[in-house]
């Protein structure tokens, strides 16, 4: 009952934040640029077109009226019109979003698969060679420009060795699987298309590793410090005394209790990955939201940039909300207030 009340409370608290996000994006799109009509019209529009647009966009009306219109459009799924793709921004987003989600999920998977065991080993062998090594690796990971790592991987695995593809989501010549989720790997699996599945996975490898390089460092450090706390506790000593093996005690007892801070950080790294998609997708010509936003910037297609910004913010707070709720559900010791 308490859990339910907590969830409802958290959901209600999302509304002011969502409201704030729309105010901020409205402010960025309507107040910062000297002339939003000029921006919306694109770089090659003449004065007459801009003046007409100013009228249709309602820019001559007071700000609060403009905000009202803006909100009304948003609620009806109208994110504006893209001057670049010549269709409503929402259509573009539907087309590009699954690619970003697929890449982000895949890189999160790699992050968890590598980052958590590295952190556990590092904590267990504190100050030994393994610990020093992971420490240096994670410091490098956090300081590394992901887009640079991407270029280097491209240089080596694509241009030099030629063993991995350098761009896109599928081999040329293959057609995408039947759209179910829009994520090629999942759709190919669901429709039993093995060739497409293989190709999709191979195309994911380099971008996902690039994306994960930064977050692995973050997760490793958090796992290490969380585990160091837990390893000092009595029940870990008891588990060892009862003859538990390293693997059993570390992963079965200690990690389960040290999971909480790691979980919270996973939410933050999810946001980090979404943000990083802007850079990584550009390197690998990955047709997702990040690449779409960067193209939009190049063509001064402002409604598209703002839609991506807002969507990513909403996604980010939603994931964090889910994690917060999970956190409460998993750990009954926590007080719901």
């Amino acid at each position, binding site marked *: 009952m308490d859990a339910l009340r907590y969830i409802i409370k958290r959901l209600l608290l999302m509304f002011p934040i969502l409201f*704030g996000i729309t105010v901020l994006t409205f402010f*960025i799109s309507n107040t910062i640029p000297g002339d939003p009509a000029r921006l919306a019209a694109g770089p090659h529009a003449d004065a007459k077109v801009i003046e007409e647009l100013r009228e249709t966009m309602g820019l001559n009306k007071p700000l609060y009226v403009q905000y009202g219109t803006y909100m009304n459009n948003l609620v009806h799924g109208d994110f504006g019109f893209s001057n670049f793709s010549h269709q409503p921004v929402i259509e573009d987003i539907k087309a590009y979003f699954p690619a970003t989600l697929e890449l982000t999920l895949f890189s999160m998977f790699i992050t968890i698969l590598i980052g958590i065991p590295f952190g556990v080993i590092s904590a267990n062998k504190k100050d030994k060679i393994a610990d020093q090594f992971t420490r240096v690796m994670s410091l490098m990971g956090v*300081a590394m*420009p992901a887009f640079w790592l991407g270029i280097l991987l491209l240089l080596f695995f694509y*241009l030099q060795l030629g063993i991995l593809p350098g761009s896109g989501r599928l081999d040329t010549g293959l057609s995408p699987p039947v759209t179910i989720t829009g994520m090629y790997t999942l759709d190919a699996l669901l429709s039993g298309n093995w060739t497409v599945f293989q190709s999709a996975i191979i195309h994911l490898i380099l971008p996902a590793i690039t994306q994960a390089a930064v977050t692995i460092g973050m997760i490793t450090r958090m796992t290490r410090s969380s585990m160091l706390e837990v390893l000092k506790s009595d029940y870990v000593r008891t588990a060892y005394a009862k003859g538990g093996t390293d693997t059993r005690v570390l992963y079965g007892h200690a990690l389960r209790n040290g999971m909480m801070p790691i979980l919270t950080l996973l939410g933050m790294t999810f946001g980090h990955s979404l943000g990083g998609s*802007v850079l990584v997708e550009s390197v690998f010509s990955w047709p997702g939201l990040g690449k779409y936003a960067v193209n939009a*910037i190049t063509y001064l297609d402002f409604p598209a940039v703002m839609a*991506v910004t807002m969507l990513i913010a909403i996604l980010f707070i939603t994931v964090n909300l889910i994690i917060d709720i999970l956190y409460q559900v998993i750990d009954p010791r926590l007080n719901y207030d």
Partner: protein
Amino acid sequence: MARRLFSSPLTLIGLFIVLMIIVLTIFAPWISPKDPLEVNLGQKLLPPSSEHWFGTDEVGRDIFSRIIYGTRISLKIGLLVVVIAFPVGTVLGAIAGFVGGVVDQIIMRITDIFLSFPGIILAMSIAAALGPSIENVLLALAITWWPWYTRIVRSSVLSIKNAEFVESARVIGANPIRVLFKEIIPNSIAPASIQASLDLGFVILAAAGLSFIGLGAQPPSPEWGAMLSSSREILRDAWWAATFPGLAILVTVLGFNLLGDGLRDLLDPKNR
């Protein structure tokens, strides 16, 4: 204190890197062998050699010289963003913690909204609205960065707000603004300043990223992110054009992170 700071080899490495960057920034014209903007089509795409340590780019510019001049741009952005964001964030955080109530609520909800965007995305959209230029990236990053300081300072203010020295200043009748600026802020600023020293590296990283996607420094500026971006066109012919600017970013960010980590360990009471 200094001895403890330098007992860690990693901190020493960080300090060394940061000092090296400062030296390169100041003495760039004397250290760099060539003019960073000088085009020499007869010498384009040359691999690293004793003449051109890091090779040349697609129009024959010396990459080593460009990277040295690039330290000026990166350090300037890093410092200016922190110099703008830090005081704004600090004062707002101190006011939120000190005054409390509705003021606290309003300030903190605004920071929540800013922090609900992944940093680079918010900076990207602000920079895109302002138009592509290095100054606009600087402004966009400053607008994105201040809420972190607000949060940190607020929590330190809350922890000292009822300390005796603050009470006594109040009792002797100092006005609240004086208490805020003379007692509260100076005594709660340490954790946020360490964060700021760590942030220098991350700001440089973010600015390079924004330049990489075309929002920041514009060619032919020897900015590292912009250099990396144009290196992609010649990746097949010139691995060096992509390798060295990225390495420069990595080393710089690592330097500030290592130094910042060392400072944090030093001031963290748990490590005493």
